[in-house]
């Protein structure tokens, strides 16, 4: 029983990391109508930025996390403004997605990998955070790193929910996600909101990267597998649905962890996809997904 609970806790915390990346993907998808294929690299860049801040500024883990999140968000806004916007505005609109955007995403992913390689080199770098002693609950020793991940992710999700549900900015973001023309005619600065949505999506990815850093190492190629898992999580939960992204992330994490513990660790990466295929067979729109919404 203890072993099972251990696996669930590990799966839960990894799942929270997937959930944060999936939340970013879903948010960007609902706001910009694009699947952002460079999001794994945003997560990697976030982790590196966090590591550098932690090492060189000598600040604590929490300020590191916050600063890395903000800085990566700004990097995201720059990427959207400088590169993606040129593509989305070619038709005179703001949501011309299609093939061009997908290829641009892959291109951005390669560029960011190489930029990171030039700056930080190919080696996996440790991210040593002194977490202190594990928390003991009964006869369970819970490593603090896992507690941190779950707590931080929950706080971030809570703040995001508050932002979207309780503020005018959140109202505008939801409006832009649903219908850009009507948002525009209601007086919302749509391009600015799109940048903001993209920035928030990237900030969530960075949070995931900084959270996973102390458990795994930080390295240039860390983005790909997380992107694929997060993508699976987002689809399992229902692409574009934010609660779905969280649910999907947690499911993918827990199933992966249980599979690795009970079946075989060699096939760790396949369990997420078994889940994905199963969900697609039973409910193609995802667990919390709704029918394809009408886009502007």
């Amino acid at each position, binding site marked *: 029983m203890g072993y099972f609970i251990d696996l669930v806790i590990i799966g839960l915390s990894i799942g929270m990391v997937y959930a944060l990346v999936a939340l970013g993907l879903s948010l960007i998808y609902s706001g910009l109508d694009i699947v952002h294929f460079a999001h794994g690299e945003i997560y990697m860049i976030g982790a590196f930025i966090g590591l550098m801040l932690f090492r060189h500024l000598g600040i604590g883990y929490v300020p590191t996390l916050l600063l890395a999140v903000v800085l990566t968000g700004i990097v995201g806004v720059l990427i959207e403004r400088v590169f993606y916007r040129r593509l989305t505005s070619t038709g005179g609109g703001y949501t011309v997605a299609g093939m061009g955007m997908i290829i641009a995403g892959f291109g951005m992913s390669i560029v960011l990998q190489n930029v990171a390689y030039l700056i930080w080199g190919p080696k996996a770098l440790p991210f040593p955070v002194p977490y202190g002693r594990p928390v003991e609950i009964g006869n369970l020793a819970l490593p603090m790193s896992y507690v941190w991940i779950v707590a931080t992710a929950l706080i971030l999700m809570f703040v995001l929910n508050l932002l979207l549900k309780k503020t005018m900015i959140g109202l505008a973001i939801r409006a832009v996600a649903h219908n850009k*023309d009507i948002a525009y005619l*209601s007086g919302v600065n749509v391009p600015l909101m799109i940048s903001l949505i993209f920035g928030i999506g990237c900030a969530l990815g960075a949070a995931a990267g900084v959270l996973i850093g102390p458990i795994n190492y930080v390295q240039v190629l860390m983005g790909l597998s997380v992107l694929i898992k997060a993508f699976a999580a987002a689809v399992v939960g229902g692409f574009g649905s934010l609660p779905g992204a969280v649910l999907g992330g947690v499911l993918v994490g827990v199933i992966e962890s249980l599979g690795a513990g009970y079946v075989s660790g060699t096939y760790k990466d396949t369990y997420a996809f078994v889940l994905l295929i199963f969900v697609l067979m039973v409910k193609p729109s995802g667990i919390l997904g709704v029918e394809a919404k009408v886009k502007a």
Partner: protein
Amino acid sequence: MLEIKDVVGGYGSVQVLNGASLKVARGQIVALLGGNGTGKSTLLKAVSGLIKPWSGSITFDGERIDGLRPDLIVRRGLVQVTQGKEVFPGMTVEENLKLGAFVVRDRAKASRALDRVYTYFPILKERRQQLSGTLSGGQLQMVCIGRGLMSSPKMIMLDEPSSALAPQVVLDIFRTIHRITQDGMTVLMVEQNVRMALLLAEYGYVIMDGVIHIEGPADQLIHDDNVRLSYLGGTVANREASLGTGA
């Protein structure tokens, strides 16, 4: 207040507007009439900034606004209510309305605007916590018009407020539009329900193939043989039908 001069424009490479010109004076209610695909909605979109005119000029309140972003035009006090009763279905009625006051920084002003919208449409106050996706067609149209009024604009452009509504609801909507104009709002209204629009409006324009074809005071247009033949139907029976169904 609004002056559109020789506006040419369209979508992609398809030219829809071929040099349309019209004027709306302050406090006036003007009807823009025409059949399907004549450029009525396109002209409104060009004014509200959703599409950029290729040439010509649009002046609002003494300032050129052609080519400006739509939200900046809303800030200047000119709001378009689109056709099709488009609301944000996942938001409550009140959230939809509040979004219309996005450009209003002054909270007290926004809440006064909300109260005013609720006096125009009391049913929306009753339903304010309801998800707007669950409203009836007439109520959706009320949310759309209400949202347009939330920024306390100087002028509002309504794109077919009567389309796809039951006759009784159409009357209600037109009565409220009348009330809104009596409170001093300037209105440019696109309509296919020509008779109703001309009863409400002071002045009318008929657009055809992207240019203004006929214009004149509403009470003259309603008796104009061309307008009558083209849009009101030639027979009494058709006229009654057009009044009834809003077609």
